[in-house]
């Protein structure tokens, strides 16, 4: 490693199902640059365009497209679980629990004091309880995704949504709309159903202490508020929760390069 730690640049790229995130840090872990783009149907072209924008000495890839990236760029990879854990823990060193809800995955992670992953739970197979679920439901209800959480927060009460399956929940929502129910209340009910599932995952890995909430869904204010209420635990949101995985990967690249 160079004696001037600020001279070396380490990148982390998180190739998610919905967006690709790129973070560049220096040898001390300070963030130098961040970029983000929609994944689209050709993740490697998008990723190639993104990394062309920055200079770096070492790069580490994470996210569902990491193996494709590894093949194209011969870069080391790390799972999104370890990457989010590292990103979240670095920003909040006293945190021992991380919840990441991304486009197609959700996971709850418990950490050791050292920031190492102790245990994790992850959804399998379907989009239940993920960003994709919220996106489809927002469209069904005619809300913009960015506004979905605020609208749900404005509701006076929850409508119970019993199905977590995207397909079944969509028909449940359709029948609620047909019954003339308030779409804000339906929206809130959908948020509550995602939180119920996320809380279940968290409880299987840890029972107390603050929770760092990462991933794109952490930008949704209704999710944050409902999660805090459901678990009665402090929720911490990174400066940009969606970048936590790419940030963690960049830090791990720095660690490996040291």
């Amino acid at each position, binding site marked *: 490693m160079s004696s001037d730690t600020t001279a070396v640049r380490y990148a982390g790229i998180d190739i998610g199902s919905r967006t690709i995130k790129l973070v560049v840090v220096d040898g001390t872990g300070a963030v130098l640059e961040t970029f983000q783009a929609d994944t689209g149907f050709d993740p490697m072209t998008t990723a190639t365009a993104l990394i062309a924008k920055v200079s770096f000495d070492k790069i580490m890839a994470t996210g*569902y497209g990491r193996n494709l990236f590894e093949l194209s760029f011969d870069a080391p990879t*790390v*799972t*999104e*679980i*370890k990457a989010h854990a590292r990103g979240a823990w670095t920003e909040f060193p006293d945190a021992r629990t991380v919840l990441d809800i991304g486009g197609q*995955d959700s996971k709850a992670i418990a950490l050791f004091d050292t920031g*190492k*992953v*102790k*245990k*994790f739970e*992850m*959804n*399998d*197979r379907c989009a239940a309880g993920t960003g994709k679920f919220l996106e489809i439901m927002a469209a069904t209800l005619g809300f913009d995704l960015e506004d979905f959480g605020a609208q749900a927060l404005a509701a006076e009460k929850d409508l119970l949504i019993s199905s977590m399956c995207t397909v079944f929940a969509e028909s449940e929502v359709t029948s609620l709309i047909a019954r003339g129910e308030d779409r804000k209340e339906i929206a809130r009910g959908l948020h509550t159903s995602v939180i119920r599932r996320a809380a279940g995952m968290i409880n299987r890995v840890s029972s107390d202490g603050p929770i760092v909430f990462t991933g794109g869904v952490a930008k949704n204010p209704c999710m944050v508020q409902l999660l805090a209420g459901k678990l009665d635990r402090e929720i911490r949101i990174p400066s940009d929760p969606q970048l936590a995985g790419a940030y963690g990967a960049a830090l791990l690249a720095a660690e490996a390069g040291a």
Partner: protein
Amino acid sequence: MTTDYTSMWQELGLDLAGHDALLNVLGTAYTDIYLSQKNRPEGMGYFDFVMSEVHGLRIKELMDEKAAGRKIIGSYCVFVPEEIVLAANATLVGLCSGADFAMEKVEQLLPRNTCALIKSSFGFKIGRVCPYLESADMIVGENTCDGKKKAYETLGALVDNLYVMDLPQTKTDQTRDLLKAEYMKFKTAVEELTGVTITAESLKAAIDVVNAKRAAIHRLSALRKADPAPISGLDALLANQVFFYDNPARFTESVNKICDELETRIQEKTGAFPAGAPRILVSGCPQAVPNWKLHMIVETAGAVIVGEESCVGERGTRNLTADTGTTVDEMMDAIVDRYFEVDCAIFTPNPQRLDHIQEMVTAYNAQGVIHYGLQFCQPYLMESIPVEKALEEKNIPCLRVETDYGMEDAGQLKTRVEAFIEQLR
């Protein structure tokens, strides 16, 4: 394949088009998963040959045995005692249940939420693609889990030679008597099928043959304790899978030959994986040929599987049958005692399994356990939670996986397995 077995398959009543498709998939999977492995022991060449001829030469051997008057008995479970079958001059083979086939038709007979293993056994029958099943003179079902015992009621209408054996679900003196009564009934049924009366000599000889086969597998398992692991988990799993199909004496000889080679590899510190590779114990549901999904995902991610706490693995092969009996009845008691020790999750309670998992973690120097559960397999999925809890209390990381034979969850499974391996490093 060099020899043309088409006429043999035709005589067995196989659906040739479906069977060709199956063999193609199997061949491709074997090439991709097995032959692509690096640093394999040379002795695995035997198993490569066995697999290339699994529906060919081996079936031809069975057909030749049948022509010579020997009976073939097919089974789906490690509770069917091979000793009794061999003693009556018959051959026991495991029946196909490790791949999805003819699923649309299967789901007309079984609920969708039936485990992949049961559905598969039906798929092979309905699709007429399992030459083992079609060549069998008797098919033995066994009342293990609810799924299987109810499925056999339906299978009974699809075949004309199903024999169902009852099994206890608790372990007491009374239930041991039940198992003994069932094994005596089975002995009579096998004797009637073959026309051969089991004698003390034939039973003793059969016990020796099966024990030798188990001892060879025990030897192989013990060698997996070494670091670097001299053999991959995939290859060791294959040996455990072929245990159910092969001629017992030849299998024993081939496994022992591989063990000789592995001993040399251990001395020379030659591994299938580098020294220090993360070591994982797999525990849970059986993985029948060609179910190599989990092992492939784990080992392509850089960890090595050092043991299987499974019916296709140590749960199935643990313990020899005592060979001290001199009369048929004494030997039948020894057989009952041996099988009564099998710690299948259909038993309640089943504390021995938990002990065995922890013993295996220590013995094989595993750093973590992956609990392999087939979706909808209630007994093992139920046990996976206390297993995880007990391991975590001892600071042994445990990943509970619930999957089936399909590949649509392979991406997420890979992420979870890789994250688990990161945890172990």
